[in-house]
């Protein structure tokens, strides 16, 4: 079975907000709302450092500690369990999604989500430009919305928009059930945390901290499993997990580094609506 998950390397994240902005653009997220936001551990405002400057010759502890946060696509999702009309549900591939036609706006799911990952359209959503952006239809007033792991892209074999547009390669999307995928290898190899682990929600988003991973250099906007011939390990990524030499991991590893003709680097198309 496929079980999609995301690894976010906090040591690679530079807090540039590209994921937050590309999420809004790709998913036509209304004005005033964010599905994805770059939190800092120092406080609730944007770019709030923790710690302090070095004083009196001390070393100081000033640190930004970026923590991009969106729906965690929990394995034991409380939002799914409380929805009386089954509008919020878990897909077979693990993505937690909302059927906006079924949603009656009771907001029980919002109250149950420990990550505040959901937003409610109190008013008629406004888009800028008016006709909207990206590849997803606007949601109506009176429903709850949130990150979908860009399921519309995933269904086409494309990585989520925030993953493709992260300039630091800090976001890696893939199949947690595939031991050879980069997400699985990184979770095994590096120190990773899930947010609010004590709530037992078992998020499918895992955060690397402490030691920087090689990331997953984006050679295209396709998911790793869709790339037949492209090594996820770029040249010089010597600290990749030791089992990444391709000996047993089929087409997800390997030392070859050719790029297939259909795996061109992501270049947004111009003109007729949508970028993919």
């Amino acid at each position: 079975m496929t079980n999609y998950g995301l690894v976010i390397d906090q040591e690679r994240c530079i807090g540039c907000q590209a994921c937050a902005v590309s999420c809004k653009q790709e998913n036509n997220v209304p004005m005033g709302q964010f599905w994805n936001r770059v939190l800092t551990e120092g406080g609730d405002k944007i770019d709030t450092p923790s710690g302090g400057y070095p004083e009196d010759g001390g070393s100081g502890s000033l640190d930004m500690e970026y923590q991009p946060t969106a729906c965690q696509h929990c394995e034991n999702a409380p939002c799914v369990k409380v929805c009386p009309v089954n509008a919020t549900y878990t897909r077979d591939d693990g993505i937690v999604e909302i059927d906006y036609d079924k949603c009656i706006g009771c907001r029980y799911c919002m109250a149950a989500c420990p990550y505040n990952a959901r937003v409610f359209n109190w008013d008629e959503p406004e888009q800028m430009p008016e006709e909207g952006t990206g590849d997803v239809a606007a949601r109506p007033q009176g429903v709850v919305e949130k990150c979908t792991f860009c399921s519309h892209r995933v269904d086409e074999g494309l990585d989520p928009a925030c993953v493709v547009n992260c300039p630091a390669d800090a976001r890696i999307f893939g199949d947690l059930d595939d031991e050879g995928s980069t997400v699985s290898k990184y979770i095994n190899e590096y120190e990773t945390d899930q947010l609010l682990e004590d709530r037992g929600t078992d998020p499918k988003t895992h955060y690397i901290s402490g030691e920087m991973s090689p990331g997953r250099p984006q050679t295209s906007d396709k998911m790793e499993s869709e790339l037949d011939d492209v090594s996820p390990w770029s040249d010089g990524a010597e600290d990749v997990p030791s089992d990444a030499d391709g000996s047993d991991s089929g087409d997800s590893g390997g030392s070859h580094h050719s790029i297939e003709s259909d795996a061109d680097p992501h270049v947004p198309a111009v003109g007729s609506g949508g970028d993919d």
Partner: protein
Amino acid sequence: MNDPQQPRLTPIDEWEDEAAAMLDGVEYDTDLGLRMARDAIRVSNGELSDAEFHEKYHEELLAEFGEDERPTKPEGFDDD
């Protein structure tokens, strides 16, 4: 425009107030939503089973929403 809303991590002692604010003005039973939210986390934690959770709220949901389509329904559960 919608009031700004965005993901954040709420400290546990502030959660209840925030959840109540989210449900404020909702057309449905606020107290039911709060109790279910609390118990849904207990289900995630393993303190409560899906079946217990389902049974506990089934009648109230039917009365409030006229339906109960939650995926927690145990096998052979009598809907009526």
